[in-house]
């Protein structure tokens, strides 16, 4: 049996501040690994997508990541790190 190991994906939230406005990684990922959500969903309030911190990017489907690195290349804030865990290369 082949065992598939996927890379670790880190998001630097200090750099990635307005992901719903930027959405470059969300749209370029061939397997849609990322997701974005409003940090607060309050009655009667629309979230301003340009206000830093209002939306957060998350790695929802890491098991689908093939380490193509397109998200790292496209990120304008250098906020993403995609690295294989040490064990996998051993």
């Amino acid at each position, binding site marked *: 049996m082949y*065992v*598939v*190991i*996927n890379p670790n994906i880190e998001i630097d939230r200090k750099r990635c501040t307005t*992901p*719903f406005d930027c*959405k470059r990684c*969300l*749209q370029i990922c061939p*397997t*849609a690994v*990322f*997701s*974005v*959500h*409003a940090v607060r*969903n*309050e*009655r*009667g*309030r*629309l*979230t301003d997508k340009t206000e830093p911190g209002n939306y957060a990017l998350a790695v*929802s*489907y*890491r*098991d*689908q*990541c093939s380490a193509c690195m397109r998200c790292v290349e496209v990120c304008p804030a250098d906020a993403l790190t995609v690295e294989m*865990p040490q064990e996998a290369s051993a």
Partner: protein
Amino acid sequence: MCRMCDWLGDGEIWYKNPKNYANRMYKLREPGKKAATSISGAGGGGGSLAQAIEAKANGDMDTFHETIKKMDEHGMTRPGAQVVPLSECIDIINDIGMPVGAMHCICRKGTRGEEENDLNQYSCMGLGTGMFKWERWPERYRGGVKFLSPKEAAEWLEYWDERGMVHMLMQEGGDFIGGLCNCDYPDCGPIRHRIDYGLQSALTKGEYICDVEYDKCNGCGQCLGRCQFNALKYEPTIDKPNIDPMECYGCALCMTACTRNAITLVSRETSPVLKNVW
């Protein structure tokens, strides 16, 4: 009949029964208790999908399968999304689902950051009187809502069908049929959760399967590429498509693409095997 039909259908297909469009699906919540989280949503089922994915990504398949099994056991106690062919979606809109409001797709917003701001972009539809209070939650209905007449709604569904989207009934955020979405892999949560993680409770196959009549089929290939479930493939040896009934979800996208009426919907009940394949 699927598990929701057995449970909520009163002897008929559950989505043809008007009571299932009412709030709470006849199961009143305990006072002060909030509605159970839908398994189809990101992080549903107590966040255990995240745990399952973490285990799988680290190569720990035992933990993955164990976690998915537990999630599915919980999921089976709740209704889930179901694939519905276009013709029956239009029946629902005409007979039961009104009012209907077109809106953005919550899955596509999350997975792709898509913003659908008007009728030319909306890909999801909310059903029933609950839609009238959408303005309470502007972020949930980001991009607004456009209420449609049954005729407009049917045309809108036909547009997305032509574009190759699978139609699915949803209980997004509630215990009642509240949405009719136009879905595709990988953007759609329920499709992804079923295909990638084997969560049967997240998405139930349709009540029908598609069947090709080879006498009518001329091998034009219009149906190819429409199937999102790897059920329909081209058979080079006979120059005709082959539909695997065990894999077919009954979305009927191949059927609506066929110009020769060579593909028909057949009830799962007609097969002693398929009546148990959901």
